[in-house]
């Protein structure tokens, strides 16, 4: 295929902005010193790191720049936050999270429950992915050490009202953490105006380099490091700073913030155009998630009676990159835990496709996707035993159900 590729998988990762790369390169080749060193090689790095920290501080609206701890990524930030809160409050042994979190939260929760005596409450969601606030209130108590809810869901884009959820946690004397890996750069965030104690973010989701993340820890929050070592990050995260990456993230944060106000409405319009274009042409498909409150760049459309990996392979052949909550793409046979938690039927969960846009997405790209999708869906449905040629579900009940 000679068609230019279309990248609509920006919730997986994003293209590093060329300006970001440009900013990073000198810190590999020229100003390669260790920021901890006293000589000139280290000195300039220290200054650049301070600048990067301030840029990120501005993007998330933190009150102080030292509330930011650089880590190796969103997963490390999440692990650090959860373990820190549990270690700093040994008399509280309960952890509240949701059923739709990223595995970086859920698999740690499973481990803590199984091996470290932590009681975990996993709050359910409704069929639009919205949190069951009553279940959350009921789970909060004097034993709650930490609450962790994602700011925005990576699969459906559904946004949780984290500032309100944080206030409820504080009323119970618990700490509040949010995994904002998908939200930072895509929604306005002003942490100093909230009661959020900790926030995780990842650089490569906002056009920064991979292998870098950050954990915001509100000043005064009790903290225990995950990685003990040198005095870097004020002793809260040992290990020589990944200076070029931090400087790259700083630049990406600066660029994102500078054009955010113009970018977000444009992305929403493109996303809505894509969504409407597909749903109006294809029968038996629907948009998942909370359509009133979700990320501007994300849409997940569930196509019934066909399987997601097959759709992705067909799209890929036309140069279109998207992703799927389908089991087969991940090598597991279980479809997305997020869609299952939302009680999306199996007939549709296996065929859910996520399109995630970026500020680089164009209208022409969106229109090409709208033109390509219906034929792919038709072709696969014709092969499906669950699809009846006159439209809808066929009578098919295999022996081994």
């Amino acid at each position: 295929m000679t068609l230019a590729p279309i990248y609509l998988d920006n919730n997986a990762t994003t293209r590093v902005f060329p300006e970001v790369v440009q900013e990073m390169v000198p810190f590999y080749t020229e100003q390669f010193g260790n920021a901890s060193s006293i000589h000139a090689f280290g000195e300039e790095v220290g200054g650049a790191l301070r600048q990067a920290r301030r840029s990120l501080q501005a993007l998330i609206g933190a009150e102080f720049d030292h509330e930011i701890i650089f880590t190796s990524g969103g997963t490390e930030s999440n692990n650090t936050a959860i373990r820190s809160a549990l270690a700093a409050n040994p008399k509280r042994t309960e952890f509240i999270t949701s059923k739709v979190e990223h595995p970086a939260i859920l698999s740690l929760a499973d481990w803590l429950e199984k091996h470290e005596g932590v009681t975990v409450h996993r709050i359910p969601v409704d069929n639009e992915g919205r949190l069951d606030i009553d279940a959350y209130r009921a789970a909060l108590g004097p034993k709650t050490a930490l609450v962790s809810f994602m700011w925005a869901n990576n699969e459906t884009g559904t946004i949780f009202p984290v500032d309100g959820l944080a206030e409820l946690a504080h009323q119970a004397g618990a700490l509040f953490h949010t995994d904002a890996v998908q939200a930072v750069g895509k929604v306005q965030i002003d942490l100093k105006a909230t009661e959020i104690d900790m926030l995780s973010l990842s650089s490569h989701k906002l056009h920064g380099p991979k292998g870098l993340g950050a954990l915001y820890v509100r000043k005064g929050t009790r903290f225990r490091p995950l990685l003990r070592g040198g005095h870097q990050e004020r002793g809260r995260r040992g290990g020589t700073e990944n200076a070029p990456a931090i400087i790259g993230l700083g630049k990406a944060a600066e660029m994102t913030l500078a054009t955010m106000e113009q970018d977000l409405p444009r992305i929403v319009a493109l996303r809505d155009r894509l969504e409407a274009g597909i749903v109006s042409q294809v029968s038996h498909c629907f948009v998942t998630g909370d359509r009133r409150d979700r990320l501007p760049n994300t849409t997940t459309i569930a196509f019934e009676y066909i399987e997601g990996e097959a759709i992705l392979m067909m799209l890929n052949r036309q140069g279109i990159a998207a992703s799927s909550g389908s089991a087969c793409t991940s090598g597991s046979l279980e479809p997305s835990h997020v869609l299952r938690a939302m009680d999306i039927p199996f007939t549709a969960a296996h065929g859910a496709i996520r399109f995630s846009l970026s500020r680089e997405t164009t209208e022409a790209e969106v229109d090409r996707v709208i033109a390509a999708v219906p034929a792919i869906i038709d072709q696969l449905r014709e092969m499906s035993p669950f699809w009846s040629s006159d439209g809808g579900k066929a009578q098919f009940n295999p022996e081994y159900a």
Partner: protein
Amino acid sequence: MWDYSEKVKDHFFNPRNAGALEDANAVGEVGSISCGDALKLMLKVNPETEIIEDARFQTFGCGSAIASSSALTELIKGKTIVEARALTNQDIAEFLGGLPPEKMHCSVMGQEALTAAVAAWTGEAVDEDDHEEGALICKCFAVDAGMIERAIRTNKLTSLEMVTFYTKAGGGCSSCREPLEELLADVNAAMVADGTLSAAEAFVFGAAPAPTPKAKATGFVIPDLPPAPPAAPAPLQEPIAIQPIRVKPVTAAKLPPAPAPAPAARTSAQEAIAIARILEEMRPTFQADGGDVTLLDVDGNRVSVEMTGACAGCQIASLTLGGLRKRIREQLGRDFIVVPAPRN
């Protein structure tokens, strides 16, 4: 993305024999929508010759499921029912130039559909044991919890290794080791509870493996080595203690060299025998220096020796041991630590 062969991609993008077969007279339906793949195989069998004259499929599933279905129909068309029956999932995978391990279950689904269609033709009952039960634990070999539990119970399996031997689960990418360990521990615990397994034998999740007594190479005999030749008369009898230390290359043994290192892995007893032989060969050298070295024990990679006479406690001791170690490494092909026994 998966590492699909060109043939898999071809059969996915250009599936052969897709769609309904109107006059099918043998149909096999397997899989389920909750599992993420399902296949309806439709055959037109000639009642006279039992030859499969046409085969078509409808598949709900990923790229490799569709490709496997397409391959299946190509493989069985023109075959007799008896011939088709002999087809295995490996034939489907091979026809496609291989499948990623995680996708082997797609070929199994093809075979299951064929079995179901053949059963529909012959009127046999389908083997109920082919049902998928419980969670899929091992993705490489598509082994579910039900099958693993049966194997553990029937064969009283208590180690992960044995579970892999009996079920193949965990034998591929190893990513299911943790759930497999948990399942093994749970089933063992249930077996202890119902009295079919003793608590001491049961596998406990997270516990270090029970120490198995090591076959210590003590008390072995050296079967085919003549007794060590009598120590060469020491050239100097009395003043030896005040002799300047002669740094003598300890490897320069005058005895014929030991046999070349065997390429095959030795057992620990065989290794101990070989070490004893090396020591016997080097002994005259030590004795020429007025000392002696005796082998006490070989345990894992530790060779314990007792040093007496001029060899003990002097600088030459480390040279002696270093030379011995080098020699052992040369001959056995792996490194040992040679340690002198503590002196009383």
